[in-house]
C-alpha cells in the first residue's frame, strides 16, 4: 500500500473524529450525540487498522475487534438508558438534562 493511501486513511480518520467531536459538542439530541460518539470510535478504528496495515502488525486489527464489541455493548446500555430517560422526561435534549449541576 502506498504512502498516499496511508495518509489519506489517516486524514479520513482525523476528519471523522473531528466530525464526531463537533457532533458531541453541538448536537442537542441524545441520539445524535450517541451517533457522534460512534463516529469517533469508528475514526479510531480506522486509524488502528491503518497503522496495523502500514506496519504489518496485527495488534491494531485485534484491538479494533475489541472496540467494536465494547461499542456494541455500550450502545445497548446507552440506548436502554435513553429509553428509560425518555419515558420519564418525554424528551432527549441533553442540555436540559442538567439536574446534576453544582
Amino acid at each position, binding site marked *: 500500500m502506498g504512502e498516499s493511501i496511508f495518509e489519506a486513511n489517516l486524514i479520513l480518520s482525523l476528519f471523522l473524529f473531528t466530525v464526531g*467531536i463537533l457532533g*458531541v*459538542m*453541538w448536537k442537542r439530541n441524545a441520539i445524535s*450525540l450517541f451517533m457522534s460518539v460512534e463516529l469517533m470510535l469508528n475514526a479510531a478504528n480506522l486509524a488502528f487498522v491503518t497503522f496495523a496495515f*502500514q*506496519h504489518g502488525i496485527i495488534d491494531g486489527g485485534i484491538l479494533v475487534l475489541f472496540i467494536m464489541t465494547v461499542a456494541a455493548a455500550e450502545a445497548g446500555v446507552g440506548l436502554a438508558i435513553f429509553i428509560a430517560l425518555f419515558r420519564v422526561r418525554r424528551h432527549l435534549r*441533553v*442540555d436540559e*438534562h*442538567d*439536574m*446534576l*449541576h*453544582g
Partner: protein
Amino acid sequence: MDFIGLVWLIPAIMAIAALINGLGCRKLGEKAGYISVAAMVFTFLLSALIFFQVRGIANEADHAAVAAEASRVDNPTGNPGLVKWNTMNAAQQAVLRAQYTFAPIMDPENPMPWETSARDGAGGHVHLWTWIDVPSVFASEHDLRVDMAFHVDQLTAIFLLFISFVGSLVFIYATGYMREDHHGKVEIDPGYARFFSYLALFAASMYILILGANFVVMFIGWEGVGLCSYLLIGFFYNKQFNEKLSCADAGKKAFIVNRVGDFGLMLGMFLIFWGLGSLSFQTIIHSLTMGEVPNGFGYSGVFITAATLLLFLGATGKSAQIPLFIWLPDAMAGPTPVSALIHAATMVTAGVYMLARLNVLYMLSPTTLAVVAVIGALTAFVAAVAGCAQRGIKKILAYSTVSQLGFMFLAIGVGSFAIGIFHVFTHAFFKACLFLAAGSVIHALHHEEDVFKMGGLWSKMPKTAIAYLAATIAIAGFFPFAGFFSKDEILYMVHSAAQGDANSLFYTTLYALGAFTALLTAFYMFRSFFLTFTGKTRMSEEKYSHVHESPISMSGVLIVLAICSLIVGWVNIPSGLIPLGNLNSLFWGFLEPITDRGAMFIAQDIYGYTDGKVPYGAVVVGEVMKDGTIYGNYHGPELLLAILSMGIAAIGLGIAWMLYKDGNLEKAAKLVKSPLRPFWNISLSAWKWDEFYDALFVAGSWRASKAVLWVDKYIVDGIVNGSGRVCRAAGIRLRQMQNGQVQVYGLVMFIGACLFLLYFAFGISSFTENTDSYSDPASPLRDTLTGQVENAEQSDQ
C-alpha cells in the same frame, strides 16, 4: 486478740457507712445520722483496743530495752552521760545500734507480724495486697512496688485514738446541729444524708491517711480528705458565704490552694523514689539510717533538703501555713461541725503528722528544719494578729487554728516532733470544743455569727458558755488546762534550742515571736469569749428572749470536750515542772521510739554521742550537743519559763477583760482610733494576704489567660476559620464548573486529553529547551510516536 490485724476494718467501716448514706440519700432521713455515728463509735472502740495493744507491745519492748541496758557494755570513758560513738569498738557499736536505731523491719515478701525489737516502733504492718508492681526497665532504675498496706505504731495509735474520739463526738453533735426545732416541729436539713455520707467518707480518708504504710496509700487519704473538705465547705452550695465568695467558691478556693501544696508533695515523693528507690516509709527510713544512700541524700544533702522542702510545701497546703493558709478562714463556709472536725481537729493536722512520720528525713536537713521553724512561728504570729479584730466568731477560731498549727510546726522546726504531735493532740480537743460551742451559739441565734451582735449569753446557755470558757483557758495556756502543757512545752523547746552557741539569736527570736503570739492568743480568745457570753447583750430584746440552750446531743458533747480540754494535757507533764517520777512525760515517752528516731540517728551517727536520751529540741542545734556540759544535762528554767508564759497570757487576758468584759464596744472603738489603728487595720484585713494573692495570682492568671485567649481567638481560630473561608470561597467559584451539561464535560475532557497528548508528544522538549530530552524516560508516548515510527519506517525500507 490481734486487733492490729483488724485495722483495715476502720477505714472499711467508714467507707461502707459513706456508701450506704450516699446511695440511700433521700430515703434514709434521720437514720443516716445514726448510721454514721454508729460506724464512727465502732471505729473508736476498735481504735482504743488497738491503742492498748500497741501500748502493751511497747511496754514489753521497753522491758527488753531495760534488760539490754543492764547488760550493756562498760562505758570506756567512765562518764555515764557522755560516750563518744567513735571511741567505742565495733561490738559496742553493734549493741547500741540494735538498741537505738531502726531494726530491719520489712521483708516485703515475708512481712513479720510484729516489730518488738527494743526501742523500735511497736505495732504491726498489715499487708492487704500488692497494688502496683512495675519492674524497672534499666538496671540503674528502681523497681516500683507499692503495697496496699497499713502500718500501725505508736504515732498511728495516738492519731487513731483522738481522731475517732473527737470524730465520734462531732458526729453525735452534728445529728443535733443539722436539725432545727421550730416549736416542737422538727425540721432536718434537706442534705442530711449527704452531709453524713461526706462526713463518713472524710473519716475513712483520714484513717487511710494516717494508716498508710507508704507515700502512695497516704496520698489516697491525703487527697480523700481534701475532696471531702471541698464537698463539705461547699455543702450549702447555693448560699452566699460573704460579700465576695459563695460557699461553693470557698470550697473551690480550698481545693485549688491545696492543689498547689499537693504538687509539692508529689514532687517530693518522686524525688524520694528517685533517690531511695522506695515509697514505703519503713524502707525509706531504714535505708537512710542503715544503708548506703546516694549522694545528696546524706546529712545536709541537697536532695534530702529539696525533697523535705517539697514535702513541707504539701504540708503547708493541708495544714494551712504560710504561704498557703488563706483557704482555711474561708473554709468556715461549711457547717460548724465540719469546721470543728476537719478544719481544726483532724485534717489540718495531716501536715504535722507527715513531718513527724518522716522525722528522720527532716532531721537530716537542718536547712529544712529552720525553714519549718520560721514558717511555723511566722504563721502563728500572722494568724494571731489577724484573729484580733475579726467579727465572725468562726473566723476568729479559724485564725486561731492557723496560729496553733503554726505552733505545731514551730515545735517540729526545732526537732521536737513528739511535742508537735502533743499539741495536735490537745488542740484537737479544745479546738473542737471551741468550734462546737460556737456552733451551739450560732445554732441558737439562727445563724448569726457576728460577735458584735451577741453578748450576755452566759445566763441563756450556761453549758455552752462553760465549755467555751474551758477551751478558751486551754488555748490561752493557763495551768492546769491542756493547752498550757503543750504550748508551754513548745516554747520551752524553742528556748532550749536557743542555748546553742550558733543560731542562738535565731531561736531566741523565734521564742520571742512565739511568746508574743501567746499573748495575742490569750487576747483574741478572751475577746471572743467576753463579746459572746458576758456583759450586756447587744441583741434585740425579742431575739434575746428566744435564745435557749442547745439540745442534749450538742450540750452533752460540749461538756465532754470541756472536761477533755482540762485533763488531756496531764498525760505529758514535764519533770521540770512537776516531778512525778514515772508519770512524767508519758505522751512523749510513748511516742519517742517513732518521733525521736531522727534525733537519735543524728546524735549517734552524725555527732557521735551514744547516750540514749537526747535533749529533745536541742538536738537540732549541733552546737548544744558538742558542748558536753549542756548535752544530756541541760535542764532549762522550765518552771520559770512556764510562769513567764502564763504571765504573758495573763496580760492578754487582762487587756481583753478591760476592753470587752461589760459588752460595751465603745472602749475598744476609742482604742481603735488611737495610734493602734494601723495594727487594727492589718488585723481586720488579715494582712491583706488575700488581696495580695488576688493581685498577684488571680489577676495575673486572669491577664495571662486573656492573652492566651487573644491568641486563640485571633490566631488559632483565624487559621481555622480562614481555611474554612478560603475553601468556601473557592467552592462557590468552582461549583459553577459543574453545570450538569454533559457536553461541557465532554469538551473539558477532550481538551484535557489534547493537552496530555501534546505534553507527552512535545511537551518535555519544548518546555525544557536545553536538555537532552530525547532519552527522557518520562515521555514514552513521544518515543512511540516518533522513534518507533522512524524505526518502523527504517525497517520498512
